[in-house]
């Protein structure tokens, strides 16, 4: 195991953990506002196809990212209309959004199968990533730096700004926030739209960066991992980053197991690759169990999470 191998591994891990980090940050804000949107997987798929389609049509991946954000946000607003305006059940409506996004993305994607898209240029001058250490810092897609920056933006917004305070108030005690005069539904709509935009960009990372092509269901359940990640992070942006890297390591193990590249591990040959493929999901459950044990007698979840807003009239 040389340094090159380790650096290459770290670069891969940071890359594959980016989509769940993006989607997780969005969902974090949504849940902080007291809304549980289980449609992350569907919004990611819609983002993946709109991002891909816009890039094919305009030839510009940056416009593609904007398109993905818009697609994700629009689908999130559809969810918002049902759960915020019509007070429908959030769990079931989120599921419907995932089914909807899966179907709609397949339908739109039909005419984009086999197409290729122009790539993002390198984020920094190529000279910087000539040696391994340079590669470790400067060789990523621009979306990776965007995701890292968003960790700080979201943390700062929630903790240090007045709007962040209002958003948290809406998620912790909607009736009080309402009685002071804040628009609970308005704040929640904005949060839901932001969550959709971030999930959409996370989805576009699959179709524009990881594979640069479109395939049905290409996010393969990562949206659900993003949801688990928010619980894992106890609704804190910094921990979300750590969590996404942890899941990134598990996904990297799976990638390598499929390619037969785990020879550095003892007995790796006797473990079926399906074991590694199941690891991220199994570990999610293990982590959830550990968190639940730690949080016994008081969860860190926003108090109004998943509950409809029903002011007395």
């Amino acid at each position: 195991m040389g340094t090159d191998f380790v650096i290459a591994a770290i670069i891969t891990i940071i890359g594959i953990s980016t989509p769940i980090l993006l989607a997780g940050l969005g969902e974090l804000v949504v849940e902080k506002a007291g809304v549980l949107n289980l449609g992350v997987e569907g919004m990611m798929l819609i983002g993946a196809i709109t991002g891909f389609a816009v890039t094919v049509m305009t030839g510009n991946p940056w416009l593609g990212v904007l398109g993905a954000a818009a697609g994700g946000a629009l689908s999130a607003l559809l969810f918002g209309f049902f759960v915020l305006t019509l007070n429908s059940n959030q769990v079931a409506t989120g599921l419907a959004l995932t089914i909807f996004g899966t179907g709609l993305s397949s339908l739109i994607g039909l005419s984009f199968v086999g197409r290729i898209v122009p790539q993002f240029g390198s984020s920094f001058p190529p000279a910087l990533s000539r040696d391994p250490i340079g590669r470790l810092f400067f060789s990523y897609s621009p979306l990776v730096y965007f995701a890292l920056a968003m960790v700080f933006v979201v943390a700062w917004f929630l903790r240090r700004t007045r709007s962040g305070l209002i958003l948290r108030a809406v998620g912790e005690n909607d009736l009080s926030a309402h009685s002071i005069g804040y628009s609970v539904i308005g704040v929640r709509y904005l949060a839901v739209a932001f969550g959709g935009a971030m999930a959409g960009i996370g989805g576009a990372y699959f179709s524009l960066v990881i594979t640069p092509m479109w395939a049905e269901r290409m996010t393969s359940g990562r949206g659900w991992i993003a949801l688990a990640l928010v619980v894992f992070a106890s609704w804190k942006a910094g921990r979300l980053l750590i969590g996404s890297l942890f899941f990134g390591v598990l996904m990297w193990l799976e990638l390598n197991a499929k390619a037969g590249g785990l020879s550095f591990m003892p007995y790796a040959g006797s473990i079926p690759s399906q074991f590694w493929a199941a690891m991220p999901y199994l570990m999610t459950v293990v982590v959830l169990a550990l968190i639940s044990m730690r949080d016994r007698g008081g969860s860190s979840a926003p108090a109004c999470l998943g509950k409809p807003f029903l002011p007395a009239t």
Partner: protein
Amino acid sequence: MRIKLEKRPDPSRLMLVVTPIASVLLTMLLGVIVFDALGIDGQRAVIDIFLTPLLASYKWQDVAVKAAPLIIIGLGLSIGNRANVWNIGAEGQYVIGALCAAGVGIAAGPVGGPLVIAAMIMAGIVGGGAWAAVPAVLKTRLGVNEILSTLMFTYVALQVLSYLVGGPFKDPNGRNFPATAPLTADQTLPLLPFTSVHLGVGVALVLPFLFWFLMSRSVFGYQIRVVGAAPHAARHGGFDGNQTVWLALLIGGGMAGLAGALEFTGALKTINLGFPSGYGFTAIIVAFLGRLHPIGVLIAGIVLAVTYVGGQVAQTTVHIPNATAGIFQAMMLFFILASDIFVRYRVRFIGSPKSAVSPAAPAPAAGE
């Protein structure tokens, strides 16, 4: 003029029946518009997806065979949803149920007959229940959210499937293709003469009535309803919340496992990587469209089966991918959930003179 919502003392029985039908009709209408907007012949697509399977008699067998697993899984899930226990991992429980049945079949070797078939189906029920038992333990002991754990276990189940059919369960005479050996004729469920309709369809027709009886006439059914509607009151009344979680997940998992075993022994006779076809997820829609009522689930299962079969018809006639049926299924779920507002509230238009009259007292407790 503005709209005002008045909470009904009890859910409206009329709306419980009207809203699912309205949801399906609205889905069809909106489907035409959306598909036309996408440049696809919307009218043709909607007719093929919703009506062709009903009008063409040779499609009826198909609808019946596809409705069976949807109804059986939907029944189990409706119990859980009534108690506010969210099992969204039925797809995994369905797959594990089928694999357990296959394990018994492989152990039986060439031996067949009713006893072997019964053992396979029992193994399916136990396997599906066991797969749901893990989230149940985690929920009752540690308070782990069952939505995420049941779903994560679905992804694990898919890997178990991939491992078993590509390894221990692989057909030794199967040209190295990852699939189990096809069941022999006396290891499969009996068919209705000259059709592909197997005994599992009969099971799916009988079970809703059994569940109806169970839910409306037993203490168990009462407990499920009370825990779901008023958890605090239920605790005061002496109903154990943990016990309800266990029952809801075991029934949900057991029914999904049963559906998997019936699909394997009745319809497909072999398990390959294509075995999971989304029935476990679609059954969630079935449960809601059926308003969590056993007879409603029976009807909703047939409606969703129609869209499955119709999706395949539309695939060849208007060349849309099979997943498109999912758009219609999701729209139905959106609308049925949104229409809850009409069940629980009376919508009044303030300022319009005709609105002041309120209808007679609503019927007691919904859904029996």
